[in-house]
């Protein structure tokens, strides 16, 4: 049960749930949260591959974990920038509905 394939299936499942959230929801906040969900699904895959290849990997014993730590840092920066963009959008249009923010359409 606790095999590499199971972990990869779990990762794929969480990634598709995140995809559904990004595509189906209109609230920007929930779309950003679904993005975090997808990042975490990928993190599970990276860590389990890193664990399975811990003794043979070129990048060293902790290569997968260090990669995941970098993804964590990118996610933190992305959340900070995304949420401040959301604040600007809220001040400007008083709405966080993605479908109403279509002024760039022709």
């Amino acid at each position, binding site marked *: 049960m*606790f095999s590499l*394939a199971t972990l990869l299936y779990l990762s794929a499942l969480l990634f598709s749930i995140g995809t559904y959230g990004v*595509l189906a929801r209109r609230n920007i906040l929930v779309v950003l*949260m679904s993005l975090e969900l997808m990042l975490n699904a990928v993190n599970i895959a990276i860590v389990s591959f890193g664990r399975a290849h811990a003794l043979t990997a070129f*990048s060293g014993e902790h290569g997968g974990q260090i990669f995941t730590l970098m993804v964590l840092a990118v996610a933190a920066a992305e959340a900070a*920038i995304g*949420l401040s963009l959301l604040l600007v959008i*809220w001040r400007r249009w008083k709405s*966080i509905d993605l479908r*109403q923010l279509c002024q760039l359409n022709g």
Partner: protein
Amino acid sequence: MSPVMEHLFFGLAAVVATVSSLLVVTRRNPIYSALFLIVMLSAVAVIFMLLDAVFLGFMQLLVYAGAIMVLYLFVIMLINPRDGDLSDEGGAPERAFAAGVALLIFSLLSFAISHSQQVEKLDSAGSIPALAAVPDSHGSVASFGLELFHNHLLVFELTSVLILVGIIGAVHLAMRRRSTSRSPSTVGDGQVTVDV
């Protein structure tokens, strides 16, 4: 920990992660979504710790469930959308399209996983803890930090630049400037005003 307990905890964490991520994408109120996302991130941290990545699991709890989710909750409470502001979510065709795309991605990924010879070869050696017998110090702060600062120092330093850019960008975007705020009526009560 005995292997049986490890399997049990992994199954529990996997079920909790799946159910709470489903709740994240289906709840209408963003506060409930954020709270279920915290549950999901904690379950992922448990999975990391079961994979011998103890330090990474604690980082996940601290950075994600701690810092990032507090930021989300803070923004939700700052903009405080009322019921009327939350428009109806997408209709049935929109949701069906999204579910179709998600199902397509999942079936493609599971097809790839089930047909990968590499994964099959690794899996035939047994479950993950038995697959690669790492030393006891694997994933501890000492060995993780030694490897990070010996082999990946440049990446680590570049991360600090990324975070710095993130901070400056966030402060610059969220700062309220009088010259650019077109409608003074949108200035709400109780909001922090930063003058340049």
